[in-house]
């Protein structure tokens, strides 16, 4: 195992983690602050990617598409909140799961009806295409580096927003005791709507960012939704800081496990057995991590005090 390969795979893991964080941040906010299980978060990510694809083909550029996608994803999230989610806040989790699962089915079919079943793509911005050598023999795509940078910046901005603004204070207070915040004269419904719209925008932002490297297709958010839930459960539901750390952990363990797992096994097993075991074991690693974390800390790494 060369050092260069290890470095590239670590960067790959970081990049996957950053992507997971962008999706999980909105999910952990809605789950933590509003105690609302939103299975439709994954399709909001998909809608973001589709919007980016549509705007990219209309305007012909990635940046303009990104600029148009953000407000549209926000508006879309608010529309969903008003039409569907608002009526479910006082219901139990089972009703929320049923209704948001319905939204998944509806939107997956909806994008297929509008844009067709064939995968779409978004052109990569010219400035960020290609790859740069970080060390001799170590090429890394510029766009993925940019993704890592954007994700870190978003994480920092969220930290400032949550910990150093009045809105953030209300959000934190709402996640601890919503009834008390309401009693103190804050319109909690309006706060929920803002949090929800913001979460939807973050998911759409993530969708637009990955559109140049991943195919845009119906159901693309479904697998990531499961990973995002793993992330927020590990990180502690409602905690942005927890989601950030957990996302990086999941991204790194998944990528490094895939990259080096079979080789490590080959040290102790026969090559064919190592391949077989590695193939079965690597997709399980993150769930093993989740089980281990929950065993030690049943409410996640950074539980929000209720």
């Amino acid at each position, binding site marked *: 195992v060369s050092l260069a390969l290890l470095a590239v795979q670590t960067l790959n893991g970081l990049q996957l983690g950053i992507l997971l964080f962008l999706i999980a941040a909105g999910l952990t906010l809605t789950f933590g602050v509003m105690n609302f299980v939103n299975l439709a978060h994954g399709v909001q990510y998909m809608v973001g990617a589709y919007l980016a694809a549509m705007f990219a083909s209309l305007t012909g550029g990635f940046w303009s598409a990104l600029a148009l996608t953000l407000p549209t994803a926000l508006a879309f999230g608010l529309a969903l909140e008003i039409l569907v989610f608002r009526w479910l806040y006082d219901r139990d989790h089972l009703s929320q799961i049923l209704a948001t699962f319905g939204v998944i089915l509806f939107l997956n079919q909806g994008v297929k009806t509008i844009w067709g079943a064939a995968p779409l793509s978004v052109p990569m911005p010219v400035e960020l295409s290609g790859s740069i050598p970080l060390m001799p023999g170590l090429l890394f*795509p510029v766009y993925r580096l940019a993704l890592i940078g954007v994700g870190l910046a978003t994480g920092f901005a969220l930290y400032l927003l949550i910990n150093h603004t009045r809105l953030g204070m209300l959000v934190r207070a709402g996640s601890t005791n919503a009834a008390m915040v309401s009693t103190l004269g804050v319109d909690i419904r309006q706060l929920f709507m803002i949090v929800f719209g913001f979460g939807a925008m973050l998911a759409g932002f993530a969708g637009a960012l990955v559109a*140049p*490297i991943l195919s845009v297709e119906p159901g693309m958010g479904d697998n990531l939704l499961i990973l995002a839930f793993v992330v927020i459960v590990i990180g502690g539901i409602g905690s942005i800081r927890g989601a950030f750390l957990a996302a990086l952990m999941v991204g790194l363990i998944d990528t490094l496990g895939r990259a080096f797992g079979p080789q490590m096994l080959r040290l102790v097993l026969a090559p064919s057995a190592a391949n077989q075991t590695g193939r079965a074991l690597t997709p399980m690693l993150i769930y093993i991590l989740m089980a281990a974390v929950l065993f030690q800390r049943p409410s996640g790494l950074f539980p929000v005090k209720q």
Partner: protein
Amino acid sequence: MKPVTILLATLARCAAATLSVAAEGKVKVGLIVTLSGPPAVLGGQVRDGFNLAVKTLGGKLGGLDAEVTVVDDELKPDVAVNKVKGLLERDQVNFVVGPVFSNVLLAIEKPVTESNTFLISPNAGTSNFAGKQCNPNLFVTSYQNDQVHEVLGKYAQDKGYKSAFLLAPNYQAGKDALAGFKRDFKGEIVDEVYTPLGQLDFSAELAKIAADKPEAVFTFMPGGMGVNLVKQYRQAGLASIPFLSAFTADESTLPAEKDDAIGFLGGANWAPDMDNPQTKAFVKAYEAAYNSVPGTYAMQGYDTAMLIDSAIKGTGGKLSDKDALRAELKKANFTSLRGKFKFGLNNYPIQDFYLVKAAKRPDGKYETEIVQRVFEDYVDRYAPECAMK
């Protein structure tokens, strides 16, 4: 009021007369393909190719009015079996055409062939039905699945590549694909990586390829996985390593892969640039009707309709004489878009296979183009196991 009543009665009688004539000279085809989920593109191409042929023939097959019932198997074998039973019992179809995917073929073969109805597969061609379980009522107009992968293994071997890196999703078709490639390729297999089905990000695998520096990469990544892999392969700066693939850069995925796929190699029994007049006319008509470039799926759908047409013509329109119809089907007396086409003893095609390359046409659309012929009159490996004469 009386004249009106008479008029109506006459009209009704006329209508009834037309109906009964139609019922006598009508052929019913049940088309079962996957039309939901991401693979719906493939099923759509088969359907459109088939319908285009019927339209070209003036709405008739073998001179009889064609009634085509399209159903969606949802890529679920149990759903497919139910829908096929509906086609057989309710619609009383003469032919069942389908499916796209092998696991669906395994499920519907028995109900169709046992009811003494012809099943013609325009895409899936599993090894069991080519070999020991071959069936006189089953015809396959595409290929035996392994053959497409064998094209690339043979090409890599002929080209003298000394090492190859293999990548496929971790399920049966992925394992079959790599096994097919390895039959003719005798060079070193640097690594054989299986990814979970549906994996979107290949950065870890691509970094491994970059580190291993193989002389060629072979992969089978259908649908959206292929789009992701192709784009990321290009972005990772690996395009100098030849990219050999099956069902990864074809007409179903090229509209999304675009320039990233240009020059990537694949294996096929046909490409839209094949140099014969029937293909030129077909591609032109298909693009005019459906606004997309037809791939092998559409070609096979079209050829299937032409095959049925030729068989009915051969029997003089007698659908009830199954033995005569079977003999006519076996003759394959139609002009295939592939040019040469005939059935082997196992009712699978004997045909040529080509190395194809993804390319951009002058009009800005993307298609695969033939580079060279790899196999001529290629019989699948399972045919000798078939006891049919």
